[in-house]
Structures are given as C-alpha cells and as structure tokens.
C-alpha cells in the first residue's frame, strides 16, 4: 500500500490568507477596474446647500458639451424610478434617488450627467446651474425635536423620524409602560449619577469609495450590476424591484470590495440611478465616488445623544438605569437607518445585572447626510453610555473601576440570561474576561506607574471598559432581509470542492476561513477547496456580511451543507468499499474503513463514481452537491474587556495612547491570525472615535469635515502596539461555537480611552469629557477654561 501524507487539521490554525496573492500583486478586480465596451460615465450634481427648494435647473450648457450623452434632472429620474425603499418597519418620507423639488442635505443629488469619460462628466456637472430658494437648516437634534427652526418633512411633525420607542423593565409587547419598578429603584438609590453624553457622528471611510457599473442588455432584457457592496443579494432584490424586473433578471456582483464597515450595506441612490439609466439608454454606465463626495454621499454612523441616570447603593451595587436616547439620523431613512439606534436600546443592559432599566429612543431628522450602520452599529453607543456611567459611579464612590463592575456582573450560571431590554444573552463569563485583562495589563503595576508619573507632574491615566455586543445576526425575526445565510458545497467530478457562500466578504478573509473548515470536514488539502462568493449568478441565495455574522451564520451554513454532502458521499464510498457508511473515515484525501486503512478509496475515486454511478446505489441520486440555509435560533453575544493607558501633554493638551490591552471572547476561532486582524481594525476605529474622528457641521448645515484634509483618519503613528489576549466561551447557538468578531474592537476601546483621559485629568475635577478628545478641549480643562 502507498503511504498517504498526513493532513494537519486547519481549524484553529493561523493559516495565511488565500486572498492575498492577487491583492499584493495588483491583480484584484475592484469595481473601478471593471470596464465594458461603450461604457458611459456618470457624475452627480449635488446640492451645495443644506436645505432649499429647487427653483430652476439649467442644464443646457452641460447638454451642449462635446462628449455628453445625456443629463437627467430629479424629475426625469423620477419617471424611471419610484421612491427608494427602506429595510425597516418604520414609516419613512418618500426619498427620491435624485431630489425633485427640495434638497435636504449638502450632497443631496439634483441632477446626473452621462458622458464619455469622468473628466467630461464632471465638467458638464459644473456647467449645470441650479437656482435654490434657501430654507432654514435644521442642525441641532434637540431643537429639531421642537420643530425648530423648521420641519424637514411635513408629514413628520417636529422632525420626529421615530417618535418614541420605550424599552426595558415594565414595558410590555404593545409598548405600554409601567414605571413603578424603575421609580422604586431610583427612590432606593444612595447615589445617582446623571450625565448627558455625546456619541458623535463618524464617517465610515472605507478606503475604496463606493462605485457601481450597471449593464442592462436590451437583447436579453436583463441587468448585470457590479457594486462595491457588502450584500449583493439584497442589492439584487432592490435593483430588480425598482427597475420593474424580476430577481431572475438581475445579476448582482460584488467584485473585490475595498472595505465597508457597514456603509456598504445600504443600497444607494447611485446604484438605482446607474441601473435605471443603463436600462433607459441601453448602454453600460459607471459611477465612481470621489472621497470628498463620499463624505456627503455615503451614510454616516453613530450620532446618538444619551441622557444617562444610574442609581446605585454606596457599596457600588447598581439598582437602576435610565437611558434617554436621541439619535440624529440626518435627512432621510436609508436601508437600516431607523433600526441601528434600536440596537443601542437592546444593549442598554450591558454586562450587568440591573434590577430596573428604562431606555427610550427618539430618532430625529436633521439636514445632514443620513446615518446607517457603521462598525458596531448601535452597540458601541450603548457600551459607551453605560460604561462611562459605571466609571462615574466608581469615581463618585472612590472605588476601583474594576471593582464596581465586578460587583454587578451577570454570573456565568445565569446564562442564557434575559435582559431587562429583551436580549437573551447566549453565554458569558464576564469576570473571567475582566480578570484576564487585569492580569494581562498588570493593572496594579500600571496604577503604580501612573501614580509615579503623576508625582513627576505628568498627566497619565488608566481606563477600563467591559462590553457585550449582539452578533451573528440573527434570527429572521430580527432582520427584514431574513436572518439566515446560505451555503452550497459541491464535490466536483475530480474530487475538488467548490463551495458558495452568501456571506460576501470585503476584507474578512472568508475564502480562507471557510476553506479551512471544509478541508477539515472532508480531510482534503485546502488547495483542493475553492470558495465562491459575491455573484448572484453563482451563489444561489444569500444575505450578506454585516453584524459580525459571516462565520457564525455563513460559516455554519457551509458546515451544514458540507455535512449533507459528506453523508451522501459516504453512501457512495460504502457501496464502492462494500462497507457500512458509519464505519468510514474521511482523512488525508481518502475515505477509508475505520480500523482497516488498506481498505480505502481516494476522494477523487469516490467523487468520480458519484457522477458515473454504475451501478447506482439504491436510494441515491447521482452527483454530490448540497445546500443549506442556516437560521440561527438566537443572536450571539460576544464580550470582552479593554484597558488603556493615556498621557496628555500639559502644554498642548495632546493625548497619546500609551497602551491598549484587549481581551475579546468571540467563542471558538477558526483562524486566530484573521481574528487578530479583525480586532486590531476594530480597536483602531474605536480609538479613532475617541481621539481624532468627528463629522462636524456648521450652523448652516455645511459639512466642515468634507475631505481627508479636515476629517482625521487615524494614521500608523496614532497607535501603540495593541496587546491582545484570548478568552474562549463557545456559543451554544451554532455548532461551530463561533460568535463573530468583526465589530468587537470598536466597543470597549472608545469608553476605555475616554475613561483614561478623565482619569488623567481627575486632578482638575473632571468627571466626564465628551467625545472626541480634541487637544483644545483637554487643554482648556488643564488650563482652567471650559471643557
């Protein structure tokens, strides 16, 4: 007998990514790399005022320009496209892809040029003259709620996009509110912490801006659309619906996608317009976003104001939490806009046993770019509000921030734990995460270092934050798209494995992690496995990559499909080997009889037999291809603890992050190398929120941070080396025990950095500093001005 090489198990290993060779050699195809014969280029003329009525649009000069194919105004696009749909159950103002009569934010499209190249298209857009009647700009959400200075959508009085959603103790399914428990908690309080907190507006800033190529083939009556999207199947659904086509007549392709961070979930005006113009003109069209355009045209994230009240006993026991949230959602509801802040409500219970919680949410329209998902999407905001309040409680009681948290944790034996806000936490061991982080960071030693530095007059501080997030979204009851994911596994005739996944990645490395799983499942070399994604003509069904769901939901779907094929393949192998299928093992590229290794067939031999089954084993159909939809019974709830140390320059107010320790429990890990990368990226965005990033609007609704000159994206010099430590509590929600890790880094990092800054400046009587930690703000605290 020939010896077969032993294949190592790959799940849990730091396998190098299979995506990388094309990416490091400039051989990948992003949407701007797609070129079709006869392709025309789009450029959008956008509003340069925040709010106004369009009196007149003069596109005659643009239309007369050499190379210009057409110019469409809002009214002309409205003949091709109905209002853009949203994906949440809330009522929404009619939102035209191109504004028809009123512009409602800087960047609102008013016309679109079709021209032979992007330079000509841009020249022509510059030649379009739009005459506006300016209207007052609504910028401050708390004034907007009073209808001041004006109302943006007449059918939404006082600019209330979502009037009031109550949640927590004493709120029944119909939304009826009984305040007795929360009132009792606050009446019994020995100490109450109250603070207004800002979780500021951010720009997602995927380094690849958005883009779309649409090609309607008149002869076939079908559409192909390439878009930089996180979810091609959802794109297909909406593009088909708005263009009057069936889903079978639209092929959506997410080519290589250069980052998303939630901002490429939404289906945008430019996607709809490109598809409609291609259909109208019968030519392929391309639109590629400029960066400055991205700052106004791609959805923003966060922007939630929280009024937090925390009731406690003097020993640190929390009795009750009130959280009043006001979300500034910008000018319109996009796909998930209205749903994102509801995740802040859901997660208001944090990692603590809180006897009474009252959380309420109001969503408000303003004349700004709409918000939607941005990495973390509602959970970092919840974490921030609660963790800052816990810190303030610790400060008030002169307790260590770790001790006040420890006193209130939900205990390991209490899982599954139903929170006051209705989440069912699947699993957790919060004290273990805290202890791991404290030990890894050397908390007591750091405190001594901090005190020694302070003795020298340096402003050094320590911060700590726990978090729990909701991931692996989710049951279909929680997602209007359906909360499942689809996978298909095919053993090809030559014994190689083709798999498709609806979890369309944009940097997450699914081609590697999913191949690791399947290679192990079938005992074949990873080189024999190909993962296909991102093309609805190849991938039958899918939901997409967001909410830290690809591994927990998409990975499980593939695992299930693999299991089905394996069962069938075992029956073919059993027939060939004249053995019982229960006695077969799949390993080292062979299917062998357990305990009789000489009795074996190669994987390829069994595959070939399955496609030419002579004789066909009874009860089997030929072929080896199976699919699975995995619908999780619940979300997953990963958790962790982040610790930071910061120094603030006394003379300039500039903060320097000295240390960041992160303990993240994402359950079982398929590829720890990729997981580390995900955590690093999340940490960078969370720290960016704390230290440098903020979308700022002027009182007139002008965007003041409209390019990378003004919006600070963190650079390599802004970070120390992150120190990561593991903690593994597998989830019972899926057979992989994996929870999701894409967003985790953003949750604990922001509050722990702010906590460290507050600690550093505690000598100046500071209890809280609003995001972000602008040096000017810190300098004023140090030098006696207003914070």
């Amino acid at each position, binding site marked *: 007998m020939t010896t077969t090489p032993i294949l190592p198990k790959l799940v849990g290993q730091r396998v190098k990514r299979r995506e990388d060779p094309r990416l490091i050699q*400039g051989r990948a195809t992003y949407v701007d790399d797609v070129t079709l014969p006869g392709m025309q280029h789009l450029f959008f003329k956008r509003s340069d005022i925040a709010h106004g009525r369009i009196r007149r649009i003069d596109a005659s000069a643009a239309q007369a320009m050499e190379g210009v194919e057409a110019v469409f105004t809002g009214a002309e696009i409205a003949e091709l496209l109905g209002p853009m749909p949203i994906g949440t159950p809330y009522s929404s103002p009619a939102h035209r892809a191109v504004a028809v009569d009123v512009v409602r934010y800087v960047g609102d499209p008013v016309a679109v040029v079709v021209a032979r190249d992007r330079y000509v298209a841009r020249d022509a857009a510059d030649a379009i003259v739009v005459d506006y009647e300016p209207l007052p700009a609504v910028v401050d959400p708390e004034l907007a709620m009073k209808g001041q200075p004006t109302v943006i959508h007449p059918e939404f009085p006082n600019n209330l996009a979502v009037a009031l959603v109550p949640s927590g103790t004493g709120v029944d399914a119909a939304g009826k509110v009984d305040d007795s428990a929360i009132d009792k908690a606050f009446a019994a309080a020995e100490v109450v912490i109250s603070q207004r907190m800002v979780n500021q507006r951010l720009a997602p800033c995927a380094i690849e801006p958005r883009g779309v190529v649409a090609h309607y083939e008149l002869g076939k009556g079908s559409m192909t659309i390439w878009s930089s999207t996180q979810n091609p199947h959802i794109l297909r659904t909406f593009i088909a619906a708005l263009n009057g086509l069936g889903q079978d007549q639209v092929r959506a392709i997410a080519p290589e996608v250069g980052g998303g961070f939630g901002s490429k979930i939404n289906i945008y005006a430019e996607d709809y317009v490109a598809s409609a113009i291609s259909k109208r003109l019968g030519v392929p069209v391309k639109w590629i976003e400029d960066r400055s355009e991205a700052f106004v045209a791609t959805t923003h994230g966060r922007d939630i104001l929280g009024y937090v009240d925390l009731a406690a006993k003097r020993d640190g026991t929390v009795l009750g939490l009130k959280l009043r949230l006001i979300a500034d959602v910008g000018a319109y509801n996009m796909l998930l806009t209205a749903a994102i802040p509801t995740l802040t409500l859901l997660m208001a219970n944090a990692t603590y046993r809180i006897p009474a919680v009252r959380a309420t949410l109001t969503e408000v329209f303003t004349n700004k770019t709409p918000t939607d998902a941005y990495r973390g999407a509602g959970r970092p905001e919840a974490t921030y509000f609660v963790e800052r309040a816990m810190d303030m409680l610790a400060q008030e009681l002169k307790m260590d921030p770790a001790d006040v948290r420890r006193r209130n944790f939900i205990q390991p034996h209490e899982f599954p734990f139903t929170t006051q806000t209705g989440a069912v936490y699947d699993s957790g061991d919060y004290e273990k995460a805290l202890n791991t982080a404290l030990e890894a960071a050397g908390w007591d030693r750091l405190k001594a270092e901090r005190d020694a530095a302070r003795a020298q007059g340096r402003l050094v501080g320590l911060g700590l934050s726990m978090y729990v997030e909701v991931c692996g979204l989710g049951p279909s009851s929680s997602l209007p798209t359906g909360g499942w994911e689809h996978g298909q596994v095919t053993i090809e005739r030559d014994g190689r494995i083709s798999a498709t996944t609806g979890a369309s990645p944009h940097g997450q490395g699914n081609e590697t992690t999913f191949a690791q799983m399947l290679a192990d499942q079938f005992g074949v070399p990873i080189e024999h496995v190909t993962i296909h994604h991102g093309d609805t003509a190849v991938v039958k069904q899918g939901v997409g990559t967001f909410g830290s769901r690809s591994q927990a939901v998409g990975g499980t779907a593939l695992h299930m499909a693999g299991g089905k094929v394996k069962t069938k393949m075992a029956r073919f192998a059993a027939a060939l080997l004249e053995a019982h299928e229960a006695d077969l093992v799949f390993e080292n590229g062979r299917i062998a009889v357990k305990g009789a290794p000489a009795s074996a067939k190669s994987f390829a031999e069994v595959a070939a037999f399955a496609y030419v089954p002579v004789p066909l084993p009874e009860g089997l159909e030929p072929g080896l291809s199976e699919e699975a939809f995995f619908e999780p019974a619940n979300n997953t709830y990963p958790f962790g603890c982040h610790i930071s140390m910061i120094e603030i320059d006394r003379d300039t107010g500039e903060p320097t992050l000295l240390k960041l320790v992160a303990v993240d429990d994402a359950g079982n890990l398929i590829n720890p190398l990729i997981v580390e990368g995900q955590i690093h990226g999340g940490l960078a965005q969370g720290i960016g929120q704390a230290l440098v990033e903020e979308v700022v609007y002027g009182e007139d609704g002008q965007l003041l941070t409209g390019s990378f000159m003004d919006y600070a994206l963190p650079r390599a010099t802004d970070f120390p080396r992150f120190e990561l430590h593991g903690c593994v509590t597998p989830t019972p929600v899926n057979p992989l025990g994996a929870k999701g890790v894409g967003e985790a880094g953003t949750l604990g990092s922001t509050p722990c950095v702010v906590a460290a800054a507050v600690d550093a400046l505690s000598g100046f009587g500071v209890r809280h500093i609003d995001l972000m930690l602008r040096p000017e703000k810190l300098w004023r605290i140090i030098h006696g001005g207003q914070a």
Partner: protein
Amino acid sequence: MAQVSIAVNGKVRRADVEPRLLLVHFLREQLRLTGTHVGCDTSQCGACTVLIDGRSAKSCTLFAVQADGSEITTIEGLARDGELHPLQQGFWEEHGLQCGYCTPGMIMAAVTLLNDTPKPTEQQIREGIAGNFCRCTGYQHIVNAIQHAAGKR
C-alpha cells in the same frame, strides 16, 4: 493633447494625453494597470503610491505630463521573475492586509522606507507609512509585514 514618454515597469509607453490627466488615471485607464488605486482626492490616503525614478510618490498629485521621461514602477512591476518582492511576501506572511485596497500603495511607500532605512525601528516604520491610510488593519500587522521584509521577524 500632449505627448508623453514614460517607462512603466521597464517598458517605454508613448501616449497622447490631455494635459490635465492625472498620472494615476493614465496608469489605470490608459495602461490598464489597475493595481494602483484611488482612495481620495486630496493626496492624503496614499492608495495611489507608485515609484517615480525609484522614489515613492502619490500618483494622484501629479499630471501624466509631469512624469514625462521618468521611470515608474507600479505594484504590478514589483515582483521579479515570478518571485514576490520581500515586502509582498511580508504582507502575505504577516496578514498585513484585509480588503487590500490600500495595500499596493502601502507596499510602494514601504519600498522607499526600506531603501532609506533598511533596518527601521517600529517608530520609524510607523512614521514611514504615516502618509498612507489603512482603515482595516489598525496598522499593526502592516508594521509586522514591513519588519518581516526587513528581516526582523
């Protein structure tokens, strides 16, 4: 139209270009070298970084006509005889990329960094790539990748 003659990845290219055509668009659209990316419009992000006469430069900050007579290396020209450049190898080994969009520019910036400073400290690496944005990695694995290429890991 203006005539330019630019050696790109070892091959001389002659073309008529609009005087206002950005070098990055010349590379991407006329030569179809789409490995060089565009991530911003203010020369902040560095996704378009290439080597011009051996030095890294942001190809969105100059016109094609300004590169007339120069020698340019793009990411497509970095590997030699089928062998990955040590930086390409480093980025692969150390998971120095996720979505990959900033990667070509990041690698080209690092080429100059390592030419100038063959054995950089971590701080020198961070400063050397401070002209290039990455939104995915938090930069740590990129630092590791450059250290790998410098023979330190």
